[in-house]
């Protein structure tokens, strides 16, 4: 059992994880360790396996080999809804909001946690004031940045202990991305562990405590953000 080798301050760990879409293996033995209360950035070019790694952690995909360890326990067979209910929340790529529902209704999807709707709204609107004026607006008509804020707010409404963020910057203007990551930095200060998958390396490294670069289904290198500058260009440009 991997529990014994997981460090005591680790809240999330992958050990030799392999995963495949049907017969095509996309993760070829991923090792990753995220400490509680830190921001971990998982970087890499398109097709490196970043989103698949998040799916495996969130329980949306089962690994074909290796161990997924959450809070010291091997959770390979856990269902995504069970993990989410306990506080491992994924904000998926492409926002993942309900476009036909209003901002308020999207937030209230998190009432399964037992929190009162008023408390959920108050917390979300305090954190993202831009959403407060649009609480009755249909979410599909919000700007890309506001939709991403809503997705983040909904993820936070679930009171996560670990937040998995997939490509927050996708399709957004650089200024909006910076604003979003300012929010991520604030969330991190509250002590929520964040694993963020991102192609927009520069911005995310500004808020990360540790980072890893993925390439071709493997972790190529792990280290502090300031140590990874050279490896980044190699991973993206094939150095």
């Amino acid at each position, binding site marked *: 059992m991997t529990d014994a080798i997981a460090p005591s301050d680790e809240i999330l760990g992958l050990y030799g994880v392999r995963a495949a879409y049907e017969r095509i293996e996309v993760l070829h033995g991923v090792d990753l360790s995220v400490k509680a209360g830190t921001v971990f950035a998982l970087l890499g070019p398109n097709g490196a396996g970043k989103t698949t790694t998040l799916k495996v952690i969130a329980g949306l995909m089962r690994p*074909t080999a290796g161990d997924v360890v959450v809070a010291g326990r091997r*959770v390979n067979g*856990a269902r995504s809804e069970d993990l989410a209910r*306990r506080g491992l929340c994924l904000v998926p790529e492409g926002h993942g909001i*309900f476009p036909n529902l209003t901002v308020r209704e999207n937030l209230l999807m998190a009432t399964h946690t037992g929190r009162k709707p008023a408390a959920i709204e108050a917390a979300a609107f305090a954190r993202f004031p831009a959403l407060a004026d649009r609480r009755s607006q249909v979410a599909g008509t919000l700007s890309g940045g506001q939709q991403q804020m809503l997705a983040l707010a909904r993820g936070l409404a679930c009171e996560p*202990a670990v937040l998995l963020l997939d490509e927050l910057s996708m399709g957004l203007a650089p200024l909006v991305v910076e604003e979003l990551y300012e929010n991520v930095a604030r969330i991190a200060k509250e*002590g*929520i562990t964040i694993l963020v998958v991102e192609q927009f390396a520069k911005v995310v490294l500004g808020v990360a405590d540790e980072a890893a670069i993925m390439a071709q289904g493997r972790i190529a290198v792990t280290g502090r953000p300031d140590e990874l500058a050279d490896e980044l260009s190699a991973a993206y440009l094939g150095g």
Partner: protein
Amino acid sequence: MEKSPERVEQFKTEIAGMNLRDPSTTRDRQLLRLGIGLLVVGIAVGIYAYTLSHGTNDPLQQRDAIVVGLIAVSVSIAGAALFVRYSIAQFLRFWIARITYEQQAQTDRVVDAIKQKSQ
């Protein structure tokens, strides 16, 4: 928002208390294949039962064929249930939840509108 150390401890406790299923990755696929197999076998046995019944004038044999046909229908239903459970059900579950919520929200809006009008 709770203090993070407390939240982390609560998270660890809740994860430790989780009931985990057998992590076998092939089980669902095997059951899906079993479902398809039962569906096909049920149809084949049903056709066999028809030919059995059609090829004789003996009422006893025809009654046997009816029983075989009923078994075939049962096997097909069981196979279809397995197929649905392990293929599209997982995909549809999320959408069912969404539709249910939207209907609920729509109903609430209508109720609110009626209340406002009656005031």
